[in-house]
């Protein structure tokens, strides 16, 4: 536990030692504002809710999360600090968790800084704050899923660019699996269980319900299992490819 905390703190400090954290937070805030007000027709809807804000989060994460996750392990590999880290008396599990948590907290921080939007809807009307809290929770969990995928792909290469692109592609597949368009392709011929399975794998499917304020244990579990699975995969990839 002690070493997870130490790694977590070191990582978080290193995000803020470079402009990366600030740039990420600013871009996140600007884009979520742009999406919400322009694309989401926040005002025209005349409804005191944050649905248009949350609606765009999968797309926002799709591009922003790989930028955060790409350096998680690629950089350690490239600079040789992986060797230093893994010869310290810590378990690989602690290292993977500590690093993941720091990135997850960074995204959580960016998410929290969108609080003016929440203040705005409360000023304009009487939103269901329970739904909004659920939306934030769901969004953060989804970010965790994206980050865990990014962590695994970052572990597989010493190039941050490759890590970014791979993460983008895989995350896109996980988002797109829930598109009606994609599902229609399967609908004609595939058995219903397969269609459900594909839809069930999608971030969109699970996030949609949560962002509407419907907190289903299965949706929360889905994200937690995704995170656990990809972090386990991260550890396996590092263990296998340590020497490269």
């Amino acid at each position, binding site marked *: 536990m*002690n*070493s997870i905390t*130490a*790694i977590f703190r*070191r990582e978080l*400090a*290193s995000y803020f*030692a*470079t402009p990366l954290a600030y740039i990420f937070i600013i871009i996140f805030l600007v884009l979520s504002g742009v999406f919400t007000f322009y694309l989401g027709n926040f005002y025209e809807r005349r409804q005191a809710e944050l649905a248009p804000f949350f609606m765009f989060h999968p797309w926002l994460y799709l591009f922003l999360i790989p930028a955060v996750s790409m350096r998680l392990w690629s950089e350690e590999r490239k*600079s*040789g*600090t992986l*060797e*230093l880290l*893994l*010869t*310290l*008396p*810590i*378990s690989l599990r602690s290292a993977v968790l500590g690093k993941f948590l720091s990135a997850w907290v960074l995204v959580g921080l960016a998410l929290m800084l969108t609080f003016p939007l929440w203040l705005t809807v409360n000023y304009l009307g009487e939103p269901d704050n329970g739904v909004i809290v659920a939306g934030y929770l769901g969004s953060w969990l989804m970010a965790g899923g994206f980050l865990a995928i990014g962590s695994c792909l970052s572990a597989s290469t010493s190039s941050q660019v490759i890590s970014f692109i791979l993460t983008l592609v895989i995350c896109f597949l996980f988002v797109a699996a829930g598109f009606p368009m994609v599902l229609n392709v399967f609908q004609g011929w595939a058995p219903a269980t397969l269609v459900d399975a594909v839809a069930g794998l999608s971030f969109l499917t699970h996030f949609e319900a949560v962002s509407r304020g419907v907190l289903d244990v299965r949706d929360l579990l889905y994200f937690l299992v995704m995170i656990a699975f990809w972090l386990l995969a991260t550890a396996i990839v590092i263990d296998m490819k*340590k*020497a490269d």
Partner: protein
Amino acid sequence: MITVDNLKKDFDGLQAVDGVTFSVSPGEVLGFLGPNGAGKSTTMKMLTGFIKPSAGRVSLYGKDVFTQAVEAKRLVGYLPEGAPAWDDMTPERFLAFVGTVRGLAEPTRSQRIAEVIKLLELEPVCGRPIEKLSKGYRRRVGIAQAILHDPRILILDEPTDGLDPNQKHHVRELIRGLAQDRIVIVSTHILEEVTAVCTRTIIIANGRILVDCTPAELEARSRYHKAVALQVPELDEQEVTRALGALEGVLTVEVSPNHAGRYTVVAQEQADLFQPVCQLVQEKKWPVEEIFMERGRLDDVFRQLTSSRKNEACEARVA
């Protein structure tokens, strides 16, 4: 006590380490010597538990590096090749992080950090990001990190690489000072380092141990071991050579092509030439400027051991 048993590492068909076996006891400073690509770093990476061997075992004070990884790693301080460090941290924070992960609690941690900073003379750069440091400081930060928890085993991969002569000297002094009742393993491709700091050397080439002996024994393997060198200018070269060559126990007499008047009298095995050569000099009243007995030339042994493949197999058996 470190025991390494038949350690092998195969990188997709390339046998980087090929059956290395040795053990080291506290108080020994073991030098891993070998040309680039010999497998020194790969061996060290396996000793410290970074990479898994294809075969063989490593045990550090009875702890298996792979089945009891965390316990084994606690015993070791390690400077990886190239002294990697997190560039955005300052040496102070870097050491604090390593100290925390190594389980040093306050106030011991701060005390130890202050001690190693003093020992490695890092005061001027303590608060500067590591990426801005010169190569010499960077390497010293890496060494500081390795000795921070006062480890029983210290493994340093090319600790003096890239340092200037003063810094090299300083680091060697430091390693010698650290050696008491500790196990130190250093790798190097610099021969003088072995005589300067090690009590024992293992020469490794193509992943195999060629020789495992003390630096003195290594020198004894040189054809120049107990050779007598003398400096006599202003004399006929042929005459001197003939006179020296006539002495009993002389193998050959070499004349240096670079230094005028520099002769090396190479001894036959076991022969002691110093007295006979001195007598000859007195008889002939040669104006000798310098005369001394060589201990042996390491580079000569090293080249001889590592150059030909045939030699290798035979030397391995001898060792």
